[in-house]
């Protein structure tokens, strides 16, 4: 179980290899990688800058990861989130979940992404092709995605 906030890129294969090295109890690995797209809300973007709250970010990510560990039988998990200046095509976020069976790994990966999007203190500022910057607004769909995990009986 670990979380990292970093400016540097990550290598999905290398991260998975590190997570599974020397282990034989893992039957399923799910990875989710989020990338910077070159468009948002119909407009083109030239890049973005990710700001965060050092200290709280790591704490929130660890809290979200611990919550996933309580809900599913995970052998291991990893969250890596980048900060700083990013270009279209760059990696932003990586979630890896490892379990004995695929169901827990799939569900936990989705949960981690839904939760971190609404809790971890990151803010995206997009750069338009005209050189103008604007802050990305939080989306209701992200809040709704996180809320479905709150229901006492999960509707999924």
């Amino acid at each position, binding site marked *: 179980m670990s979380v990292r906030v970093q400016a540097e890129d990550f290598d999905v294969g290398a991260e998975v290899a590190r997570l599974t090295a020397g282990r034989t109890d893992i039957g399923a690995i799910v990875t989710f990688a*989020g990338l910077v797209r070159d468009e948002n809300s119909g407009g083109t973007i030239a890049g973005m800058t*990710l*700001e*965060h*709250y050092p*200290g*709280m970010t790591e*704490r*929130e990510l660890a809290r979200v990861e611990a919550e996933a560990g309580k809900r599913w039988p995970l052998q291991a998990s990893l969250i890596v*989130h980048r900060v700083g200046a990013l270009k279209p095509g760059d990696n*932003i*976020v990586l979630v890896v979940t490892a379990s004995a069976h695929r169901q827990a790994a799939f569900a936990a990966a989705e949960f981690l*992404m839904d939760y*971190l*999007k*609404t*809790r*971890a*203190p*990151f*803010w*995206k*500022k997009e750069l338009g092709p005209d050189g103008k910057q604007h*802050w*990305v*607004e*939080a989306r209701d769909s*992200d809040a709704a995605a996180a809320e479905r995990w709150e229901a006492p009986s999960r509707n999924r």
Partner: protein
Amino acid sequence: MSVKILYFAWVRERTGKAEEIVDLPAGVSTVADVVAWLKARGPEYAEAFAPPGVVRAALDQTHVPLTASIAGAREIAFFPPVTGG
């Protein structure tokens, strides 16, 4: 009560500062009280907190509602809804 206040994203841009140490007067006891007190300090704060119900808060690096008591807090942060991932 002396406390460190942090601002992030457009809240930081509008207040014009990333952090400051402030001396809160007696009677400022909740996060909402802090917001009201800050708004009265100057137009840049009034603008930062103008959109009603938008700015979020954390006490000592934990999300809290505006109704939370600030008793014992060392660090109060204000920021827009988060947009990571």
